[in-house]
């Protein structure tokens, strides 16, 4: 390739690259901790239905929250979608989230929205115990997550201590079972030699290989693994409905303070809570719809049948510093 053709090729590539992206200043800008697979089709539909253009930046919920904090008032973002209430609570604590419309908030059960109106849950994921059905029989599995400290589970339980959902679960436990009981449980778990993993995926993968018998994860990962690899022996086990281990954690939507697109943002949040959008979550992403009257995916215990622990969901964000410290001082490695 001569120098000239190289330059021409580069210029062409650059033109192609810049043509391929938005940067539309009038568009509704969304920072999404939910991946494209989980939300992309809904965004396209919203755009088609309303004609409102959307610019979306996908990323890790916690890292997007850090970016939003760093951007401050100059942020181009109008909306923040988060996989976990923890990252949302961090931004709410920094005063970065605006008050939501009451009509939007009221669509969702009070358990799954912010009491101060800073965020609303759009879908739910349940904490479960994933287990290898070739190594363990269902009868041996406990009804309560608190029983995992028993000797018979020594060395058999996988945990992802640095994972946001595990941390949300520990925060809920602090509220439901008390600070001391939680600390005692964490220390007994460490003494029971759990195997620590990087994240939910790594746990489900290790359980399906048989490297470890069971692990604490969110419910929908195993559905994906079973779709990709139908023969996998990994199965979900739900703890009893009133157990803290069976916590349902909402993924959240919020609006940034200082957006000049409040109306569009409110329309978007309402759109996420329509029956049709909620059905998308139950049918396509195996999550719990949070709006009353929309049934959960087949094979899932219905949300209403779960006496989902009645915790103060706001503290999931606010109380996380203490949770992380507690997990760390209990002796989990990798935290």
């Amino acid at each position, binding site marked *: *390739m001569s120098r000239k053709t190289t330059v021409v090729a*580069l210029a062409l590539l650059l033109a192609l690259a810049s043509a391929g992206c938005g940067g539309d200043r009038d568009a509704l800008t969304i920072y999404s901790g939910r991946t494209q697979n989980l939300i*992309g089709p809904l965004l396209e539909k919203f755009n088609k239905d309303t004609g409102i253009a959307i610019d979306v930046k996908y990323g890790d919920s916690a890292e997007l929250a850090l*970016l939003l904090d760093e951007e401050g008032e100059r942020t181009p973002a109008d909306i923040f979608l988060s996989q976990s209430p923890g990252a949302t609570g961090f931004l709410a604590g920094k005063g970065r989230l605006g008050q939501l419309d009451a009509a939007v908030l009221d669509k969702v059960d009070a358990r799954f929205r912010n009491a101060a109106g800073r965020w609303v849950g759009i879908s739910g994921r349940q904490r479960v115990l994933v287990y290898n059905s070739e190594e363990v029989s269902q009868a041996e599995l406990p009804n309560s997550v608190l029983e995992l400290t028993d000797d018979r589970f020594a060395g058999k339980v996988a945990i992802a201590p640095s994972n946001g959902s595990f941390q949300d679960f520990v925060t809920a436990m602090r509220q439901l079972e008390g600070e001391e009981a939680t600390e005692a449980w964490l220390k007994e778990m460490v003494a029971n030699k759990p195997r620590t993993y990087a994240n939910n*995926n*790594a746990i*489900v993968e290790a359980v399906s290989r048989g490297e470890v018998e069971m692990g604490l994860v969110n419910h929908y990962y195993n559905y994906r693994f079973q779709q*990709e690899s139908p023969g996998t022996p990994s199965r979900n086990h739900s703890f009893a409905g009133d157990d803290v281990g069976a916590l349902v954690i909402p993924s959240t939507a919020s609006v940034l303070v200082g957006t000049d697109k409040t109306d569009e943002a409110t329309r978007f949040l309402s759109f996420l809570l329509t029956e049709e959008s909620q059905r998308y979550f139950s049918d396509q992403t195996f999550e719990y719809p949070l709006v009353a009257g929309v049934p959960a995916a087949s094979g899932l215990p219905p949300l209403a049948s779960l006496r989902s622990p009645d915790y103060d969901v706001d503290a999931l964000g606010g109380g996380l510093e203490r949770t*992380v410290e507690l997990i760390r001082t209990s002796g989990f490695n*990798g935290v």
Partner: protein
Amino acid sequence: MASTASERRRGPARPRPRRRPAPAPLAAVSALVACLFATPLAYLAVRGLTEGGTLAAWTSAATLGPLARTLLLGVSVAAASAVLGTALAWLVARTDLPGRRAARLLLPLPLVMPSFIAAFALLAAFAPGGLLEGLLEPLGVDRLPAFEGFWGALYVLTLFTYPYVYLPVVARLGQLPASLEESARLLGRGPAAVFRTVVAPQAAGAVWAGTLLVFLYTISDFGAVQLLRYETLTSSIYTSRVFDRTGALAQSLLLGVLAVAVVAAERSATRGARPGRLAAGARSLRVPLGRWRGPAVALVAGVVGLALVAPVGVLAFWAGRGLVAGSTRAGALVSDAGGLALPAVHTATMAVLAALVAVAAVLPVAYLTVRHASRLAGAANAVIVGGFALPGLVVALALAFWTLQAPWPLAALYQTQALLVFAYVVHFGSQALRAAQVAVAAVPSRLDDAARTLGAGRLRRLRTVELPLATPGLLAGAGLVLLSTMKELPATLLLAPPGFETLATRIWNATEDAFLADASLAALSLLALSGILTWFLVVRHGNAPT
């Protein structure tokens, strides 16, 4: 650097390069470049001051334990990669190794595997209950040892970082004149002795250049250590990044300070090392391997097998399974791989731009650091090279912080491709600088002096004498930046314009949701694209006949 010491004792006496004071324009440009590269460190310092508590965090047990593990892993991986990368480069560049043309293309490629997917694939392959265990079961192996912790991280990181050593060394060896080795062989020395006494001293600068990069990469890596459960500073930063900002900022700053100190110490230790000898266009020698041919082929095949074939095999298995099963999900790659075309174009464009800009930006600094003695040179070198140890997340947050504070024309760059390319250059410019320093040092100043005597101006000498001779080394540097940029994830996610997808972000998207088949297809595309670009930009120009 032991080889330098022994080289001094043994080598024929040659005058040390004269270090002239730096011309003002060169110093000014270098200072500007260094300031731009210092933006992440400056951000950490500013934030550390405003948040406070830095010193307390540095001396807490939560920092010291991970710090010790970080250093242990960094030094171990650097040593292992130095040995492996140098051996492979010598086999490819200087011996009659069968299949070296293929090896030349394949050996740099492990560098492009994003560690978060490569480690995941290797776990699925080698961990207990994995694919390999399934293959070995008929042979009576029923439980493989655990694949994790220090040894797992050492193994995975060495396999994915040795190209940092291999690439500059292979470029250097391709330029060595054959005469010295021929003389050594005529004196009856075997391949090993020729390597030790002739090749190693000449390649030492390149080996050292790559080894430092491996060390810096290792202490900044997050994906592999997290999956393999070895707690280092980066995994600690990751855990506390949101809920313990003070701790995360302090630990990031510690990582940066550590890196800058190591780079500065390395520079003062190797100052005065002689530049290599070079004879452009000289036919390079092929050492016949003789009875070592078998083991040599086994080594190269083993490395390619473990670092490339094994993870690619796992990815191909997942992709194939997904393609057979199909998917009804909207936008699934297994049913419509066309979704990869635009991300592939984005990836290639950004990587080529970042590579070119990085080489252009660091070239003045390379001249300053190699040819001129000055404090500025030392500081610029430490800041640019040391910055490589900072995690991509820190680079991204720093650039967001500074860009949005800046006045209008600069602030308008926020979340544009231009800022993204800048982020890549700041993040990976160290790789181009190290390679450029080796390349510039290899140009004998005698040639420059001769051209000057003949009345050639500074720029003309640069264009007609120095750049042509330095080109293979500069291309090796560009290649390193290119491969690193293609797989970069955290800064890409945060700084790319909304909707701007690369292959790395597609892999991440699919991995997050456990769509293994989609992740595998995107990862295989990334690998293929890297192979094509490496061949076009680096191997083809590598000026060593094969």
